């Protein structure tokens, strides 16, 4: 049974309200990682590899250790000397050593950690650590890594996640396929076959709140404060590595966008803290964040077979993800791509081949909707080429192929809440698709419009299970404490959970208090990623309230000496239905003498019982559909592209906090304009990242902001808490496809690679002449 739809009363759900913590944020009163200290804390500086690939010949830290104020230096020798410490960690691939053991695998790889009384001393001492390297050939991109005779970044493979399949003797750490129908026969039946290759750049997330950690190892107990997005998996990994209990505490987090989704500094700083015998704090610099986790480069080859009327018959999609030097999390992102690579279209014959490839770049991590973003750009850009070639209207071509409820996806999922057509209509209408485009009298600036459609998954277990719980407790002051593992990273999760809890309990916001993300104070949660929290944690919260209510009724029944069945919940407490007796929540807990508490789970996965009586796999607990429509202006003299208007429409299920949804969509669009138009990490021939400093790495500003038109399709989603789905990433996912197509519309040139830098635009326009 799905308890999650909850009661029909909704007073808080559906209301737009600023986040609960907004006043404290506006006042600068919220504490982020860099604002936290613990007594007797020492400070760490990491010694990093200057080379992308090298064998470590020797490490001499004696001078650094001798420096006054230095507490200790952690190198491979100290790690090896501690029999109680596991050397290697990793979430889906156990391939990352705490510090480099035999070799370094990317520029910025962690070689040693210097711990000192203050940051300046740690920095100065880090300069004194003498590391001798024997440089190895580096593979800096996928073609190099796949070349005949290429050096292997890892000689052995250690996948943890069962779905990962490396190809021995190569740099491919994961190859997987998915398919339906008979793709070769599909191509044979097609009237036309189109083949394209698309490239998307590596970029960094640039979350302003620098990734940081404080680790304390005391009396056989680890306590870690960090702004990571996955506190529970991190705690389990710490317990495995150090063989002692670990508590992970997450303060408010100033953005992550995927860069903080997996461990890269917490385990090594814990090793340093254990060695130091003191709490150790480490805050990455902005430049170091660029060498810690990045969004990977994507190469995407697509063959699509269509009938003369534009009906898709077959699609083969091969893509290569550059996971960098460690596949800690990148290999799983690549695998998830299988679910979305063919898009929100009915395709009877399809095959997808995914290759995750080790290189000597920094490790890759998720990035707000990755990998759906890159695939959406590819299939949408190719779709516009097909439309133009066949002389079919771009919107009409999509309408002919978009999925509808009841269609079977490539994963075998029975699609529900597939309002893809509505999203397309909403987004195009929002930017005035059919209105005439302004014309530059001088003919130098060209305008155009483009559209994109997508389907996106959320993280879903391979079998039926709960990956998160919530606890709701009626505590001393008559307030309901909602204890959740969801990390408040700026997405408004506390507010959404308070709205859901308030309505589930029929109380106002003043009676709800959120306690978040401390692994010793809240029940388990898998992660705050993949737009999963509103749905998954929301359901767990509703179930916890459902489990708490009988306890409260029982207690009230005894106190009031009334039948439990005759009592009702009111915003203030529990009352006899006829009004003859009542007890407030404060009195109830006071008279019971201890808090009343209950937990709830969110069981997902397994099989879906379709309305046709058949049973279907669930590759994604919910699918999100979305469209973006964009209008651009291309300056043919300077090559500059400006996104003038951008509308995004997404299927959100019930909108718990409508204006918050709109601002999430605006934020997603605004962020993705960077990698679409100008953001790109660049390495020189020697494998050195040349634009790790923000001075050399432009980000979107208020001046690059388009006129936004955020929209949503809010039909309640069966099973979601009050009918809600998640949506934090969907705004960004649809941007590059729509912008590339708008530039195609404006200029007649279809660009196969983003970012659309002025250089590329001018070159493309010249190629056309």
């Amino acid at each position, binding site marked *: 049974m799905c308890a999650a739809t909850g009661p029909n009363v909704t007073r808080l759900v559906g209301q737009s309200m600023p986040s609960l913590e*907004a006043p404290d944020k506006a006042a*600068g009163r919220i504490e982020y990682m860099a604002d936290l200290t613990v007594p007797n804390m020492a400070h760490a500086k990491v010694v990093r590899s200057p080379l992308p690939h090298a064998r470590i010949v020797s490490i001499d830290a004696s001078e650094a250790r001798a420096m006054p104020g230095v507490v200790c230096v952690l190198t491979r020798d100290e790690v090896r000397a501690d029999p109680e410490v596991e050397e290697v960690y990793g979430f889906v691939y156990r391939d990352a050593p705490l510090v480099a053991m035999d070799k370094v695998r990317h520029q910025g790889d962690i070689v040693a950690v210097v711990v000192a009384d203050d940051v300046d001393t740690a920095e100065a001492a880090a300069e004194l650590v003498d590391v001798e390297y024997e440089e190895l050939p580096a593979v800096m991109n996928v073609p190099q890594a796949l070349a005949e005779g290429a050096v292997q970044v890892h000689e052995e493979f250690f996948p943890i996640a069962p779905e990962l399949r490396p190809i021995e003797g190569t740099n491919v750490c994961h190859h997987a396929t998915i398919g339906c129908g008979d793709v070769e026969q599909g191509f044979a039946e097609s009237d036309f076959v189109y083949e394209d290759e698309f490239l998307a750049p590596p970029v960094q997330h640039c979350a*302003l*709140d*620098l990734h940081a950690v404080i680790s304390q190892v005391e009396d056989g107990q680890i306590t870690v404060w960090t702004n990571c997005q996955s506190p529970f998996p991190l705690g389990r990994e710490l317990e495995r590595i150090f063989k002692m209990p670990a508590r992970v505490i997450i303060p408010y987090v100033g953005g992550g966008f995927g860069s903080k989704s997996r461990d890269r500094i917490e385990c090594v700083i814990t090793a340093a803290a254990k060695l130091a015998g003191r709490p150790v704090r480490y805050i990455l*610099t902005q430049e170091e964040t660029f060498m810690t986790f990045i969004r990977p480069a994507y190469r995407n080859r697509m063959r699509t077979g269509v009938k003369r009327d534009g009906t898709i018959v077959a699609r083969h999609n091969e893509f290569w993800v550059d996971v960098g030097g460690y596949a800690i999390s990148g290999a799983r992102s690549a695998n998830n791509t299988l679910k979305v690579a063919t898009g929100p279209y009915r395709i009877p014959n399809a095959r997808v081949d995914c290759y995750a490839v080790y290189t000597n770049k920094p490790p890759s991590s998720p990035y707000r909707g990755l990998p759906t973003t890159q695939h959406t750009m590819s299939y949408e850009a190719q779709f516009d080429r097909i439309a133009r070639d066949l002389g079919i209207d771009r919107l009409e071509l999509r309408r002919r192929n978009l999925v509808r409820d009841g269609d079977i996806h490539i994963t075998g999922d029975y699609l529900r809440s597939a309002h893809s057509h509505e999203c397309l209509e909403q987004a195009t209408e929002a930017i005035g698709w059919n209105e005439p485009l302004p014309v530059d009298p001088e003919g130098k600036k060209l305008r155009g419009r483009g559209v994109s459609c997508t389907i996106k998954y959320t993280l879903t277990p391979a079998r039926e299970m709960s990956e998160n719980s919530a606890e709701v407790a009626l505590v001393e002051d008559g307030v309901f404490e909602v204890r959740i593992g969801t990390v408040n990273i*700026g997405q408004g999760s506390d507010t959404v959970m308070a709205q859901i809890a308030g309505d589930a309990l029929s109380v106002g916001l003043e009676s709800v208090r959120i306690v978040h993300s401390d692994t010793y104070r809240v029940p388990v949660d898998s992660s705050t990623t993949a737009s999963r929290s509103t749905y998954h944690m929301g359901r767990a919260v509703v179930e916890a309230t459902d489990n708490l209510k009988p306890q409260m009724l029982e207690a009230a029944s005894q106190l009031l000496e009334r039948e439990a069945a005759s009592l009702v919940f009111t915003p203030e407490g529990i009352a006899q239905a006829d009004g003859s007796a009542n007890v407030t929540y404060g009195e109830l807990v006071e008279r019971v003498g201890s808090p009343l508490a209950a937990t709830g789970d969110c069981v997902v996965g397994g099989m879906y019982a379709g309305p046709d009586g058949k049973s279907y796999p669930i590759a994604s607990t919910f699918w999100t559909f979305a469209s973006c429509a964009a209008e651009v202006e291309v300056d043919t003299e300077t090559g500059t592209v400006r996104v003038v208007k951008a509308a995004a429409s997404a299927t959100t299920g019930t909108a718990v906090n409508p204006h918050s949804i709109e601002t999430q969509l605006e934020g997603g669009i*605004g962020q993705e304009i960077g990698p679409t138009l100008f953001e790109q990490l660049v390495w020189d021939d020697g494998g050195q990242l040349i634009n790790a400093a923000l001075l050399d790495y432009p980000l979107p500003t208020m001046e690059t902001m388009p006129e*936004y038109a955020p929209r949503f399709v809010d039909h309640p989603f069966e099973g979601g808490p009050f009918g809600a789905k998640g949506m934090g990433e969907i705004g960004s996912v649809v941007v590059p496809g729509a912008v590339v197509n708008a530039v195609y519309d404006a200029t007649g040139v279809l660009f196969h690679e983003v970012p659309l830098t002025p250089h590329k635009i001018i070159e493309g326009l010249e190629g056309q002449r």
Partner: protein
Amino acid sequence: MNVTLTVNGETLSLDVPPSTTLLDLLRDRLSLHGTKEYCHSGVCGACTVLADGKAVSSCSMLAGQVEGADVLTIEGLTPDEGLHPIQQAFVDNFGLQCGYCTPGMILLAKALLDENPAPTREEIIRYMGGNICRCTGYAGILRSVEAAVKERGSWS
């Protein structure tokens, strides 16, 4: 070296190493954590404070450069009770998400409105274009500043 300056109305005389930035002085010496750090190169604006009414990147100013200056941080802008009207406008208009850039954005908006009580949308965009926000796409920030401009007559 010794530096004398006014921070949030209080005149202070401090001994600091010459390499101390205004940001370090505020955060580490005075524990005014509302001023944030990201790029440490004067690009992102997270560390924006007002010095003699002008918005500056505190990470890029040495303490010696603010000798005698009157510095206002987010803590100084925030009244004892409630919020300053610009802060309230950011809350009401969803001008923040993670909140990390927010103190800098609000102080930048304060400098703008002190200089130009009735800026046009274009003037706001040009003035605010220097500070980075990664969450909002800037739409909520623009709405907040425009709302604060509208309310400008009602506060001093």
